[in-house]
């Protein structure tokens, strides 16, 4: 098989990329020049110029523009010398490089206008060849441990020294790439570009992660970065825990404004000075550190412990109030309790922050999706992603993405018209799908997926569903019916219906948010989703009691068993609202309350199951009608003060669309015991 490949077909691409590289080289040269004015070197800019010229040279060679190859080659040689010498480029070299880059730019333009570019001017080439690239660059003292320093090029060493001198601390970050990270768009590429916005990346080096036996387990990237961003932000940027962000060296102490107090001869260095000296040496972390990634479940665990702490803090408040009522002086106690309250709030905030991921990264896979859908449906579609700096809880993000995929897929398959149709309607040939995300009041995110396609044909949908559709809200209702499909436009990617039922389930039932629709025939459709920034996911037992379903966190339950299997001593004092039986379990007597009676919803049905909880070392059992199963649910706080009640921890949805109460049996047990037991 022979297929002739003609690289001349890439000449258009060459013009575009070469023009970008010329712009980049100019910008970097101007930055170096600005550095001259300030008396600092810009080693990174020198590297950038070098790479731009190197790439231009390679590309020009491929498409056969020799004039550009000659100029770029000369400049590349000049700048390589400077880079190897530590990234100092002399004023004269910057001057001649700017001339050279301008000459390249002129030739790129000639190519774009299909003119033959002029040959490289010999005088320019001579000038480049005879220029001294480096100024008299002073040697840069190593900033970090010898081991780390050995991995830095002269230019990187100088860059590190400059950045540190500017007052920012240096960090060693350890990013562990993985399939799961890659699946949600967290790759070394995304990490790198994110870190570039937070500081200056000096060096990135790969490392093999080995197990105790020396077996190769995977790889990690060590990233040396100089940044004033908080450690948490840096950890976030590499989707890792704080342990993956290690200080390499502290910034130099700020210059002292006043003359220091004269120290006597032979004065001992102060402890602070000693500490600083130690910082500079002992805190230097070797480049090969262990990587620690934290599973989300561990953060959940942390959050659960926090809620226990919150509960015990409420009890403390109650005790203090009781003491105050009894006439004790509780002022100092209250001060401590208030301080603890603030610390708890900060702790909660810190834990929540650890769970946040950038929306831009969460939605990144949509770009690839649109690209491949557009190809297979032979439509031109452009995706605009605008997530700004929004962040959301990882657990929300994981649930959100499938809904976004459905919306974007529907837009490509059903909304954007084929190019010919768009032309006929006077629209640009390429359709645009825009996904925008903004944070709104009430700790919520608003996500809008809009397209400039054909809009939804209400009349057609009304005919098919045999319903009258007056508003967009009715339309959304019909579209979100299970398995609703517009059949005639069904495609192989979304042939099984639009999946709008799934989108609404995710937005409304799973995440406790809202979904709205606005469509204009011929002009486009937009879906607006409002979802909370965080949710708490809890594994629960669902059970029935008095014709109602309830759930209780699995972690609160010690044991569940058939009441029939246990020996029961009936209530000693019949007739009360909350009667206590004694349950014999492994030689212990456990007080058992009827949950139906505690909640005043008893319908007289015989309770068959007992759930044992442990509260402060004391076991308490509740009898319930029957168990319904075990599942993970999203628990929503009940904000309405009218509904807030002791023993009710929140509300959830078991998938039937009806709110189900999440019970705090510990709280109920405490109340019942206090009432019943002496």
């Amino acid at each position: 098989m022979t297929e002739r490949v003609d690289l001349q077909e890439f000449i258009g691409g060459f013009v575009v990329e070469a023009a970008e590289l010329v712009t980049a080289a100019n910008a970097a040269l101007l930055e170096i020049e600005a550095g001259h004015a300030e008396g600092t070197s810009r080693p990174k800019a020198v590297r950038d110029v070098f790479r731009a010229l190197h790439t231009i040279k390679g590309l020009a060679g491929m498409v056969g523009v020799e004039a550009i190859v000659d100029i770029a080659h000369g400049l590349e040689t000049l700048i390589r010398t400077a880079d190897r010498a530590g990234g100092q480029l002399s004023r004269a070299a910057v001057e001649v490089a700017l001339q050279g880059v301008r000459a390249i730019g002129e030739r790129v333009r000639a190519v774009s206008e299909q003119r033959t570019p002029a040959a490289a001017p010999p005088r320019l080439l001579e000038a480049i060849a005879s220029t001294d690239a480096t100024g008299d660059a002073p040697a840069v003292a190593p900033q970090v441990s010898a081991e780390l320093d050995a991995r830095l090029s002269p230019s990187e060493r100088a860059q590190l020294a400059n950045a540190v001198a500017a007052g920012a601390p240096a960090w060693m970050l350890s990013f562990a790439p993985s399939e799961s990270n890659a699946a949600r768009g967290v790759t070394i590429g995304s990490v790198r570009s994110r870190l570039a916005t937070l500081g200056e990346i000096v060096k990135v080096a790969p490392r093999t992660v080995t197990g105790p036996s020396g077996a190769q387990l995977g790889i990690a990237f060590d990233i040396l970065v100089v940044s004033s961003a908080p450690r948490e932000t840096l950890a976030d940027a590499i989707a890792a825990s704080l342990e993956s962000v290690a200080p390499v060296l502290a910034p130099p102490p700020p210059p002292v404004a006043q003359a220091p107090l004269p120290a006597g001869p032979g004065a001992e260095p102060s402890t602070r000075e000693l500490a600083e000296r130690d910082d500079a040496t002992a805190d230097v972390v070797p480049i090969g550190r262990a990587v620690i990634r934290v599973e989300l479940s561990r953060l959940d665990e942390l959050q659960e412990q926090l809620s226990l702490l919150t509960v015990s803090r409420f009890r403390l408040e109650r005790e203090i109030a009781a003491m105050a009522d009894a006439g004790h002086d509780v002022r100092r106690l209250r001060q401590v309790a208030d301080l603890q309250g603030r610390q708890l709030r900060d702790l909660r905030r810190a834990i929540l922050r650890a769970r946040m991921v950038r929306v831009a990264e969460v939605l990144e896979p949509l770009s690839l999706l649109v690209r491949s859908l557009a190809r297979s449906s032979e439509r031109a579609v452009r995706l605009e992603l605008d997530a700004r700096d929004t962040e959301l809880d990882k657990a929300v993000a994981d649930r959100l993405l499938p809904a976004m995929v459905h919306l974007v897929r529907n837009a490509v398959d059903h909304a954007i018209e084929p190019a010919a149709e768009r032309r006929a309607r006077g629209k640009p040939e390429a359709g645009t799908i825009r996904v925008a995300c903004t944070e709104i009041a009430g700790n919520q995110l608003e996500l809008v997926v809009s397209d400039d396609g054909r809009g939804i044909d209400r009349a057609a949908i009304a005919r098919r569903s045999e319903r009258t559709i007056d508003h967009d809200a009715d339309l959304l209702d019909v579209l979100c019916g299970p398995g609703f499909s517009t059949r005639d436009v069904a495609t192989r990617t979304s042939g099984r219906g639009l999946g709008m039922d799934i989108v609404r389930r995710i937005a409304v039932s799973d995440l406790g948010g809202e979904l709205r629709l606005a469509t204009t025939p011929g002009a486009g459709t937009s879906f607006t989703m409002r979802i909370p920034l965080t949710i708490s996911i809890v594994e629960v037992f669902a059970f029935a009691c008095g014709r109602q379903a309830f759930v209780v966190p699995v972690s609160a339950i010690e044991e569940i068993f058939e009441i029939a299997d246990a020996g029961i001593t009936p209530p000693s004092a019949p007739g009360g609202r909350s009667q206590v039986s004694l349950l014999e379990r492994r030689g212990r007597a456990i007080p058992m309350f009827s949950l139906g009676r505690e909640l005043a919803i008893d319908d007289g049905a015989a309770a068959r199951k007992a759930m044992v909880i442990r509260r402060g070392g004391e076991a308490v059992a509740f009898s319930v009608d029957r168990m319904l199963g075990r599942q993970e649910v999203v628990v929503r706080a009940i904000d309405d003060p009218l509904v807030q009640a002791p023993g009710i921890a929140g509300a959830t949805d078991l998938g039937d669309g009806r709110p189900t109460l999440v019970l705090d049996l510990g709280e109920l047990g405490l109340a019942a015991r206090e009432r019943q037991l002496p």
Partner: protein
Amino acid sequence: MKRLLVVDDSKLMRDMVAACLRPLGAVTFEFAGSGLEAIERLALAGFDLVVLDLNMPDVGGVEVIEFVRSQDRLRALPILIVTTRGDDESRARVLQAGASGFLAKPFAPAQILDEVRRLLPSSVT
């Protein structure tokens, strides 16, 4: 279906390499824009051959070769270096680091096609 990874910081260069290799037929191309991305992709997925540029930001081609060769499961992976630095010294350095083949830019489409055919295990076409 063979999987090829084309690594170059220039998108145009990646496209050109893929165009030159299209006559291979049954191959899928994947692309990386830096040495770092290449290392990540190679660590996470299996490829049959890598076409690698030498001069890239952060981690250059030689470092990529050295790192790849230090990985037990990637020791035999064919790596074809494609570089503007066609001098003998570069060639020797790259081959010593563990590259399987070396091609200087500019190259003709047939040249890279021949090189890849030579290096691909149980070559297609």
